[in-house]
């Protein structure tokens, strides 16, 4: 909603400042998003007072003046006006200022005399057509004051964010009601003389009140009938004959323009004035096009209408239309038809002032994809008691501005009724919800200040009966009135003192702590966290599709985090990233037997490129390899499932591989249940890129209880270490060898670690050398060399027997 300061002040009967209006509305009613001078093109114009004036020595029609423009020294200015009055203030454009026409004032010589600026006429400032002389100002403002600040040419436009539940604020009257309540003044009834003192605007004479009828009636020979009672509960028609279509007077054009509405002609401008002034959308038809009949009905099958915006529209079935004798002439509450538009040739007018069903208007507006100032208000609610009165005001204004006459009372056709409720309000409940007792008398005063009518209940209970005004469709329950009291009392008036509270009964969701641990571990490992979009181009099940996707390549919910990580890696590669280290902890979806998909929390990690930053001691850092990703996968698995035996099984079935996985390295499982996999990825990568590795792990069922750690006593006996270099035939895995070592070495084996793998010269084909370091320790005594040697012998013979593994000699 755009509002004009002067228009608001018309209703307030005083000159509230722009800052006052902004602060009051924002604190109490609706946020003012911006405040800007309507005539921003005049911001550089200042007040200049002529201190000396004499004839130009070389030009008899020019004046040579000295002007005080607030700069400290007097400026010599040449002026061509017929009269210049010493001691009078004029609008002054200093050197460097740009006039509304685009001319920039320069310091220049005029007939040999230097001129440092320009005294302006009304027309030069776009303030009217008078250019017979410079604009003498009645102002006490000091020279140098901004012209906009010193004169009422400076109307101000507010951009106001009106909330969906407050349609009453979608008009100047409604906004002014809130301002008046805050300023402790009354709302001034609007009359033409408030806005205009120009004698050329004929006074708006009284227009007879319309006659109320049920369903159908006639005014000045025009039959008006409501057929679609659901779509239109009330319709007031007024006939004005003999108008002269022409431009609007400046007060009207200026107010509309200040509110961001283009002035069209005197009749259309009056309807817009009613909409923006009072919140009542109206429509003026050219009576000659209606064929003597107005029917409010549902659209017929395949009915079409060319609307005011020039678009030929197919009307959706069930659209409420305003039809003439032959066909639809307007779409109710949304937009008029081009065929019955008021033009310069229009003589007689049929003026519509109506109520339309908000839901029906909303449905039509959505179906047609056209939103107007009228539909915006009808969708939200229009004051249901003021319809007839608004019709009379508008008809009077049209007669005043465009001539013509209202020969017969209008017709007020009713097909439904709306009552505003009376709501009970318990003062003690107000205090409980708001936390402060502001007193019943104050509540009554606040509610009454914006039109509610609170009365004490007759039963002595202290409960108030509050009649809701017709423009407040949002107030229907006690809580609505409590909000009203809080708002009018001022949110900032309430205490912000922290009071004691009882502890919550809700335990922490255990996933929160787990995710914190996982995130800490991965960040600590040098990875960056990503939060990508969860939409993908396809899924294994159509139930994961969105009914209304934003784009076809984002039409499905993801089942895996890998797609997002791969897209992220490709994005980084396109920016020449030499090292990509990303992780995400996020939700993935699975289709279920129910309409609701299953949601799982997954951890995904992607590594590619440099495993370490470059350093002068290491000019070519190594690239990430499977062992890096395996460690991270183990780290995450151990964090999520601390005491459990998470298995990393070598994958042998390549059949189930789907992009972006090119090869599964290990499948991660717990108790036979798959938790995820570590994979080599295929992605769209430049030739210099190294392989990308990733893993994804389902942590939904993680062991979220804090891990129990049992202290192990520190050893007091020395260790004995032996190295075991083994020749391992292909087909035997390191894991198998290590299992035999563990089985044979006995309890005194403290740890076993692989420290070398070697193939090549000196070894026969089909055999590799693997070397382990075994650490032995007895808890109570020092182990003897003999004992270790014996175990080693036993180990080697077991390895030879069970796996064909031999000790490497020499």
């Amino acid at each position, binding site marked *: 909603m755009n509002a004009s300061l002067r228009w608001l002040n018309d209703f307030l009967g005083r000159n509230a400042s722009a800052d006052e209006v902004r602060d009051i509305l924002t604190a109490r009613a609706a946020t003012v998003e911006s405040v800007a001078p309507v005539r921003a093109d005049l911001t550089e114009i200042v007040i200049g007072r002529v201190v000396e004036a004499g004839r130009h020595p070389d030009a008899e029609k020019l004046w040579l003046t000295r002007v005080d423009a607030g700069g400290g020294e007097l400026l010599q200015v040449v002026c061509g006006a017929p009269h210049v009055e010493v001691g009078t203030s004029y609008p002054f454009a200093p050197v460097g200022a740009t006039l509304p026409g685009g001319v920039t004032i320069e310091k220049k010589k005029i007939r040999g005399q230097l001129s440092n600026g320009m005294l302006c006429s009304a027309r030069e400032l776009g303030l009217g057509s008078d250019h017979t002389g410079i604009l003498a100002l009645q102002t006490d403002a000091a020279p140098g004051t901004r012209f906009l600040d010193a004169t009422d040419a400076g109307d101000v436009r507010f951009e106001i964010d009106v909330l969906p539940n407050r349609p009453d604020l979608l008009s100047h009257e409604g906004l002014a009601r809130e301002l008046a309540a805050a300023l402790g003044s009354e709302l001034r009834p609007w009359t033409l003389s408030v806005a205009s003192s120009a004698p050329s605007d004929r006074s708006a004479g009284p227009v007879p009140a319309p006659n109320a009828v049920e369903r159908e009636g006639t005014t000045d020979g025009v039959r008006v009938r409501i057929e679609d009672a659901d779509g239109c509960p009330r319709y007031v028609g007024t006939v004005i004959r003999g108008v002269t279509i022409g431009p609007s007077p400046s007060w009207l054009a200026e107010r509309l323009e200040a509110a961001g509405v283009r002035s069209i002609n005197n009749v259309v401008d009056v309807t817009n004035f009613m909409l923006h002034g009072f919140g009542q959308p109206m429509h003026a038809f050219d009576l000659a096009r209606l064929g003597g009949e107005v029917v409010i009905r549902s659209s017929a099958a395949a009915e079409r209408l060319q609307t005011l915006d020039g678009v030929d529209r197919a009307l959706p079935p069930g659209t409420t239309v305003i039809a003439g004798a032959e066909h639809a002439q307007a779409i109710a509450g949304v937009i008029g038809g081009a065929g019955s538009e008021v033009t310069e040739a229009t003589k007689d007018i049929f003026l519509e002032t109506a109520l339309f069903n908000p839901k029906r208007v909303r449905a039509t507006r959505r179906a047609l994809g056209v939103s107007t100032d009228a539909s915006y208000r009808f969708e939200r609610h229009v004051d249901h008691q003021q319809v007839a009165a608004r019709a009379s005001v508008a008809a009077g204004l049209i007669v005043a501005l465009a001539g013509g006459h209202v020969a017969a009372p209008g017709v007020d056709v009713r097909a439904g009724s709306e009552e505003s409720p009376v709501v009970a309000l318990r003062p003690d409940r107000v205090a409980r919800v708001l936390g402060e007792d502001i007193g019943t008398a104050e509540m009554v005063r606040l509610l009454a200040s914006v039109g509610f009518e609170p009365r004490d209940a007759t039963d002595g209970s202290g409960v108030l009966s509050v009649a809701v005004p017709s423009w407040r469709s949002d107030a229907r329950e006690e809580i609505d009135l409590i909000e009203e009291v809080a708002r009018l009392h001022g949110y900032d008036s309430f205490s912000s003192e*922290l009071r004691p509270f009882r502890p919550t009964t809700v335990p922490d969701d255990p996933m929160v702590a787990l995710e914190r641990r996982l995130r800490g571990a991965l960040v600590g490992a040098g990875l960056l*966290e990503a*939060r990508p979009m969860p939409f993908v181009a396809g899924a294994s099940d159509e139930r994961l599709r969105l009914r209304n996707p934003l784009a076809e390549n984002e039409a499905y919910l993801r089942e895996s985090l890998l797609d997002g990580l791969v897209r992220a890696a490709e994005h980084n590669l396109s920016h020449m990233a030499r090292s990509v280290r990303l992780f995400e902890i996020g939700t993935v979806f699975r289709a279920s037997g129910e309409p609701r998909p299953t949601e799982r929390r997954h951890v995904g990690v992607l590594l590619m490129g440099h495993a370490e930053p470059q350093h002068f001691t290491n000019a070519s850092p190594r690239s990430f390899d499977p062992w890096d990703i395996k460690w991270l996968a183990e780290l995450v698995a151990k964090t999520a499932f601390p005491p459990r035996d998470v298995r990393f099984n070598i994958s042998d079935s390549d059949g189930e591989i789907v992009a972006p996985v090119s090869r599964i390295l290990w499948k991660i499982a717990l108790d036979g249940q798959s938790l995820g996999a570590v994979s080599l990825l295929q992605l769209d990568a430049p030739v210099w890129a190294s392989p990308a590795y990733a893993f994804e792990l389902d942590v939904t069922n993680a062991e979220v209880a804090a891990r129990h750690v049992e202290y192990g006593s520190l050893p007091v006996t020395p260790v004995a270490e032996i190295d075991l270099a083994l020749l391992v035939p292909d087909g035997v895995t390191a894991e198998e060898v290590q299992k035999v070592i563990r089985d044979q070495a006995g309890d005194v084996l403290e740890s076993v670690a692989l420290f070398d793998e070697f193939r090549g010269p000196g070894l026969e084909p089909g055999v590799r050398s693997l070397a382990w370091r075994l650490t032995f320790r007895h808890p109570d005594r020092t182990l003897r060399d003999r004992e270790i040697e014996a175990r080693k012998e036993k180990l080697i013979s077991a390895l030879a027997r069970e796996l064909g593994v031999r000790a490497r000699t020499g």
Partner: protein
Amino acid sequence: MTVEELLARADTVQAEGLALIAAASTRSELDAARTAVLGRKSGRLTALLAELPALAPDARRPAGAVVNRAKATLEAALAAREEELAATARVTQLPRDLTLPARERWQGAMHPVTRVIEEVSDIFRELGFTIALGPEAETEWYNFGSLNFPPDHPVMDLHDTLYLASGSAGEQGEMLLRTHTSPVQIRVMQQHAPPIRVLAPGNVYRHDPFDPSHAPMFAQIEGLAVDEGISFVDLKATLTRFAERFFGTGRTRFRPSYFPFTEPSAEMDVECGVCSGFGCPTCKQSGWVEILGSGMVHPDVFTAAGVDPERYTGWAFGMGPARIALARHGIPDIRLLYESDMRFLGQFR
């Protein structure tokens, strides 16, 4: 050799030996000095010791004491010098150019939005809140109906919704991607009796195409406090305390707002941190920055969740950590949050 001669030689050998040791500037020079003085074959002090047996028996003992003292002195000097040289050697192993760069490790970083969520969570934990989570795919009832959204109301225009094609969940309505974290309010109240103080961070979805200030998915943080005697004053107090802690300013402003599930509803602004309230482009000249929406839980929401609205009152709020992240880091375009660009994410270490 007489005793006198021997004692004089001992003084000389000691003095010369100490000079030799002091002059040794490397390990090998020190070894040479050791050999020259104490060497088994040609050490000068060793030679003196060899002279002792030739002395008169009653002179042997005092002379031996003197020579042995000289030997001990020299050995101590050798040990001390050796330690000095070793220390010097350790120092000189350092590189000559100490301006060379450090050997770095890769440093990880949390996403800036996660950081905001964590910081906000920490502050609310101190204010007695626990963390609750809820599903991202929801029914119409949880997302709208239970939260008092009027059907066909203009407020629905603010919740352009992404629906799933998986079909209707019966009386619960269609499946959709939650447009806010407020459904978690209902779920928590269905599962737990008051007193309730929970925070619910999570992703929410809107049918909004990407542009510099909109994304189809973004994070939200919901808060809910329910108990007997909870009031608008508690709402203001708690949220103001949060603002003090998070933004470092207690200057807050509460404006009327509208959410179907709270009444009275209030928007909380904090004083603009860029201009300290004077007005600047960041705050659109208003001096204030909008932080969160809040309000007293609507009685109809309590009823929908099975909580007695006459006995209990409560307040709730919702805020957008992505917007806060954009503002606090000066990030110009929300899309940067979702691109997973290493150069971007790496800035938030």
